[in-house]
């Protein structure tokens, strides 16, 4: 690498060649060179805005207002009302992330070639990213609410007698998670798919594989690691759901997610150690899910797929 490009220094011109390489060469061999300075802003950022608050919170969670260091954790798990927020959140985040990934695959698969209007379709699919949760919630209330267009059309067609309840409950939050999470999943899957060399499928075709066999035996196995990563990312996004759980959900009941529990501890009871403990539990659950998915990912081929990256 950079070893060969270094200009010889004064001492290397001396007659006996040194037994050990110059310290600069040895450092360069380990990837240590002047460009390392470029990492400083990012490192500073990580330390100040992530590591410090994290360890502060971690420390705080072990200093409850009363009881031993683990008493806030014990309190969370012994209270069914609190404990159930884990299942509520997982019940929202896992299906939503799964749907986002699964729905992205056929659309991205269809869209990976070049065709007229591709840019327009991509923009339409990705626009929800720019909306933000609050605007999405507003839209959902207008569209799916008891007097929204959706129910008006249904009752206009005499398909239903009573409006179907699709907001202020589980489904409102679920739709909101899908609308905001899908564009991320789609863009990621599309880029993973275009990293797979299209001649592989052509080769499979000449060997007698129909389109479903080509997809199932060639494209899907090569795409699986990408799908696992995409799942993890959309899952994390969905797991920390807060605004939509309040705005289009039922924050006191069926969509009382774990971040609401943390919020209430911090800003309604002003019990920061308890809130920190809940936040730590939240992070731990995310880690467990990600670890499981990434472990499953290692069972697939993760090497080069010969595409254009």
């Amino acid at each position, binding site marked *: 690498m950079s070893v060969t490009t270094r200009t010889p220094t004064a001492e290397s011109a001396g007659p006996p060649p040194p037994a050990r390489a110059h310290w600069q060469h040895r450092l360069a061999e380990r990837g240590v060179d002047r460009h390392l300075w470029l990492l400083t802003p990012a490192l500073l950022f990580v330390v100040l805005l992530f590591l410090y608050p994290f360890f502060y919170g971690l420390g705080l969670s072990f200093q409850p207002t009363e009881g031993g260091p683990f008493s806030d954790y014990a309190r969370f798990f012994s209270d069914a009302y609190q404990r159930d927020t884990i299942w509520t959140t997982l019940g929202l985040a896992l299906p939503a992330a799964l749907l986002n990934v699964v729905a992205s695959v056929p659309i991205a698969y269809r869209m990976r070639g070049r065709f007229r209007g591709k840019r327009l379709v991509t923009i339409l699919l990705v626009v929800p990213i720019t909306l933000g949760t609050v605007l999405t919630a507003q839209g959902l209330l207008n569209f799916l609410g008891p007097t929204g267009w959706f129910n008006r059309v249904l009752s206009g067609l005499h398909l239903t007698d009573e409006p179907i309840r699709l907001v202020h409950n589980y489904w409102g939050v679920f739709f909101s998670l899908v609308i905001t999470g899908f564009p991320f999943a789609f863009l990621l899957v599309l880029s993973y798919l275009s990293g797979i*060399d299209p*001649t*592989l499928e*052509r*080769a*499979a*075709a*000449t*060997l*007698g*594989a*129909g389109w479903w*066999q080509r997809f199932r*035996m*060639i494209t899907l*196995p*090569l795409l699986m690691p990408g799908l696992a990563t995409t799942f993890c990312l959309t899952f994390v996004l969905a797991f920390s759901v807060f605004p939509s759980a309040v705005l289009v959900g039922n924050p006191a009941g069926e969509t009382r997610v774990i971040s609401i529990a943390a919020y209430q501890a911090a800003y309604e009871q002003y019990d920061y150690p308890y809130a920190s403990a809940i936040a730590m539990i939240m992070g731990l659950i995310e880690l467990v899910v990600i670890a499981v998915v990434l472990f499953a990912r290692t069972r*697939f*081929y993760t*090497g*080069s*797929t*010969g595409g254009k990256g």
Partner: protein
Amino acid sequence: MTAGAKAFSQLRLEGVSRRFGGHDALRDLDLTIEAGEFVALLGPSGCGKSTALNCLAGLLPLTAGSIWQDERRIDTLPPERRGFGMVFQNYALFPHMSVRANIAFGLRMRRLPKDEIRRRTDEAVRLVRLEDHAGKLPGQLSGGQQQRVAIARAVVLEPSLVLMDEPLSNLDAKLRLEMRTEIRRLHQSLGLTTVYVTHDQEEALSLADRLVVLREGRVQQIGSPEELHTRPANWHVADFMGYRNLWTMRVREAADGTVAVELDGLRLVGVPVGPVAPGDEVIVAVRPEDVRVDQAGATTNAVPAQIEVVEYQGRELAAEAVTAAGSRVHLRTDQRVAPGDQVTLSIDPQRLLVFPGDAAATRPADPATAVVEEPGLVG
């Protein structure tokens, strides 16, 4: 299910054409391939060779024409129903499958019994001598080994036709020669019908029974290696077949069988290929190995020149000489010549081919400028 697996006696391409936008990538290809034949499609990069092959394989729809397997029309069949084997330029091995699984893939698609799949896969692995690597992933193999897997994967199905798209172009020179022999050996021992695409005239000449020379999507000439080597149909083919000396000259006299041409006082006699008349601008083509260096007095077609560049090539020297009028002459000789030597070159009139010039275009100064940029869109 396995529609195309049975052999045919003849494969006919009738007016096969393919357009991309307003650009003809392939135009009116008429070709009849007999069973067991080895046909090479030859031409510079971008001339439509891959397009032709992809049309045959069913990977590209035709814009005009038809393809017939005996009396059955096959250009409307999808690739998986044609039963042709294909070897891609970048091999296109399935990276997540072992060598063995790659080779067995086509057999599994045919839903053959398990033990037959095992038997035929083993056989194919042996055929390409990869017994020691059967369990590895393609990424763990060298280029030549990957190439052999690609060939084994295509031939294990005993396809009625094998298509190869520049299969050797990613290999180094020594391996290329070895694999060339191997491909020919496989072709002979399995009796395969093969269509082979290459831009390397030497490769095509050594492998094929019949050559199809393409240029800008059109067929220039179809013939045996011998025919193409000695009697190119036009100067483009000559250029491609190793006639490195191409001079634009003017016809003085044209009698039947011979023609006299002139440029800046230099007069040469040669054989006309195509209609030439006195006064025409023509292109004179001579192979470097047909230019002789004569010490003694001149005979016909004597050209005084000065040696300018000499390249050592083992038994022979390749040299470039310049005539008094400034024309460059490429030659090969076993005599020791050195830069600066004054020599008299001579050319056998039978080996000096006189082609009618293109009406519009003049000969490009450098053969490289005639090569169309490869877009890299289709294999």
